[in-house]
């Protein structure tokens, strides 16, 4: 209740239109859509870089690029895929789904939510624009290791600025998600009744808040080393480049889980729906997610066994890394147990979710192989590592994003997607993905180093197979684009519940979900 004069501040009653709607919007659905479209555009940008990389690697020798440009491509591919595709896509899901799943009308801080998104394209432009600067884009790897990152040109400064901006966006987004989940749950929706997607995002946001200052500090120290004469990491001045690796991975290993925990959440929503059974072991899923998050703080040095460290430290990081397999195994077991004797149907979201469970497990197992310090010393910086993290991030994170899009798109748009095209997209993606990345295990085991544009003749066949797979996988994403655009434009009317086995507050809303929802919170029994 307020005086009418005050009430003009309340922007919840109108439905703005045009460009200003998107620039000034504080509506969680609009902002979720913006995140998802940003991620989609960046997926094609960074995916094109991947295709260029694979085209270059189709045969030994230099065909399309020079070594420096090749390094720029690998670096930017990694940076954009992580910070421009996976993270924004999950933020898009969080924006769309968290308030709907909690019975909340919006995020806790809608204006901050708007800022959190709109700084992202600025960072994206800084990153992409650096290709046109003297010296080209950054070429020192997405990990930004010194001394390369101290020695590079102006694009390195811009990349540091872009990383700061993306970090700011993540912090604002995370604080919003934590406060929304904790403070805006519908009456009766206790923490242990929350959908698992909300739990995984709560823990992800917690991890982001805990680790972002480390990244910000690390890149700022790089910046001062480059421009202000400090020597934090500059060996020439008594600094320690290895210490950057410790600091970076202290951030970046939790970051790996930031990239995968929301994927666990999406899959944990999709599988019970199409198995028509409640999620097996809900509480154990929550505790497993929390355990993975806690363990992520004590495993960072498994990325740097080769820099040299005492045997005791190697053993500690090796065993702590292996320990992560336990809660992850609990999750995989629970997903399989949920499907066990379920009345399963295999619509596109379920297909992607099943592929996630199978292929992410392969990525997890190759991670266990790499956790073994003596083996890692052999495989470090080989294509085995490339295969491992692509099984985690492509068939893990990206496939879960596809599953989530197909699962919730009817709720968002009010139209059913084209199931036939969806299945084409799935099969081409899953076949293409395995053709690209599975041979990389063999390349790595045979000793082919990563981040090189040329290679010994013995690696040719597997590289050619990988390149063919990359083009199948890459071009199959155009089907996904068509499906999304087609669904937005029209299609069969989606019912409110959309899926027979779907449970949760979001399915009580009409399809498409109205612009304003849950202005009065529902009561959850």
């Amino acid at each position, binding site marked *: 209740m307020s005086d009418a004069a005050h009430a003009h501040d309340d922007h919840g009653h109108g439905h703005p239109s045009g460009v200003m709607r998107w620039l000034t919007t504080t509506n969680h659905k609009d902002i979720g859509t913006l995140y998802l479209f940003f991620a989609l555009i960046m997926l094609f940008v960074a995916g094109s870089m991947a295709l260029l990389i694979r085209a270059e690697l189709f045969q030994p020798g230099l065909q399309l690029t020079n070594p420096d440009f090749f390094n720029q491509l690998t670096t930017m591919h990694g940076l954009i895929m992580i910070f421009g595709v996976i993270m924004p896509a999950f933020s898009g899901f969080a924006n769309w789904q968290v308030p709907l799943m909690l*019975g909340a009308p919006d995020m806790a801080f809608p204006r901050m939510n708007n800022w959190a998104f709109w700084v992202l394209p600025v960072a994206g432009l800084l990153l992409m624009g650096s290709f046109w600067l003297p010296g080209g884009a950054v070429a020192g790897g997405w990990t930004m290791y010194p001394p390369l990152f101290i020695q590079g040109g102006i694009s390195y400064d811009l990349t540091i600025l872009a990383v700061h901006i993306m970090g700011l966006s993540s912090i604002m987004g995370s604080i919003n998600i934590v406060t929304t989940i904790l403070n805006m749950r519908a009456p009766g929706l206790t923490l242990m009744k929350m959908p698992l997607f909300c739990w995984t995002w709560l823990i992800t946001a917690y991890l982001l808040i805990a680790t972002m200052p480390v990244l910000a500090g690390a890149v700022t120290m790089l910046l001062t080393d480059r421009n202000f004469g400090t020597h934090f990491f500059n060996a020439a001045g008594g600094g320690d480049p290895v210490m950057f690796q410790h600091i970076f991975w202290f951030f970046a290993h939790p970051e790996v889980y930031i990239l995968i925990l929301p994927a666990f959440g999406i899959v944990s929503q999709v599988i019970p729906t199409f198995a028509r059974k409640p999620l097996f072991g809900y509480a154990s899923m929550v505790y497993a997610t929390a355990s993975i998050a806690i363990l992520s703080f004590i495993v960072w040095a498994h990325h740097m066994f080769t820099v040299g460290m005492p045997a005791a430290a190697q053993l500690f990081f090796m065993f702590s890394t292996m320990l992560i397999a336990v809660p992850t195994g609990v999750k995989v077991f629970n997903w399989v147990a949920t499907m066990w004797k379920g009345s399963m149907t295999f619509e596109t979201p379920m297909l992607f979710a099943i592929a996630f469970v199978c292929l992410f497990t392969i990525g997890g197992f190759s991670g266990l192989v790499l956790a073994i310090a003596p083996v890692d010393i052999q495989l470090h910086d080989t294509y085995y590592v490339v295969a491992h993290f692509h099984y985690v991030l492509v068939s893990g994170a990206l496939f879960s994003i596809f599953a989530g899009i197909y699962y919730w798109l009817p709720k968002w748009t009010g139209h059913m997607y084209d199931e036939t095209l969806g299945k084409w997209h799935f099969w081409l993606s899953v076949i293409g993905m395995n053709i690209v990345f599975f041979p990389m295990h063999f390349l790595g085991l045979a000793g082919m180093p990563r981040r090189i544009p040329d290679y010994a003749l013995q690696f040719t066949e597997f590289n050619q197979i990988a390149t063919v797979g990359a083009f199948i996988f890459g071009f199959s994403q155009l089907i996904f684009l068509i499906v999304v655009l087609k669904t937005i434009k029209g299609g069969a009317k989606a019912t409110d519940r959309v899926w027979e086995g779907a449970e949760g507050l979001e399915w009580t809303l009409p399809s498409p979900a109205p612009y304003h929802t849950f202005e009065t919170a529902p009561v959850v029994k």
Partner: protein
Amino acid sequence: MEQVKTEVCAGESAGAFVFQSRPNLSLTRPQERLVFWSLAALCFATAIGFAWLGYWLILPFAGLEIGLLAWAFKALRSREGDYESLVIEGDVVVLEWHRGKHGARRELNRQWARVECNCRTPGRNCRLSLCSHGHATEVGQYLNDEARLQLAAVLRSRLQG
């Protein structure tokens, strides 16, 4: 978009009509303390640890971030006291509201009070106000359209009766 008000109560109290609503705030103080202090401890422990080794530039970022988190929780707490109430007793209509740092009370004469409900589209995007002497006060801001329309009907009958 404001917080949803779900704690709505409307009814008779000693002959008076009373309508009250409060925000739905699910965050408890122990939860807030646990989340805030665990994050602050983790961030500062990490930052101080690295500062101890000479890498002190993490510390100011940890401070800024925890400051932002503290502000966010403080902003949430400031909503704890939000409410709106409407009492019709005899010939007097008393409106009271409190939002963040702002609050007010207004008394209207029941005979002069008029219910206005403007919907941009039929039944949707409605604003409910009590008007008197050329001055409108919005009511039921925390309700959805359906509940707002119901309240409007109840108020009309109460003001006429």
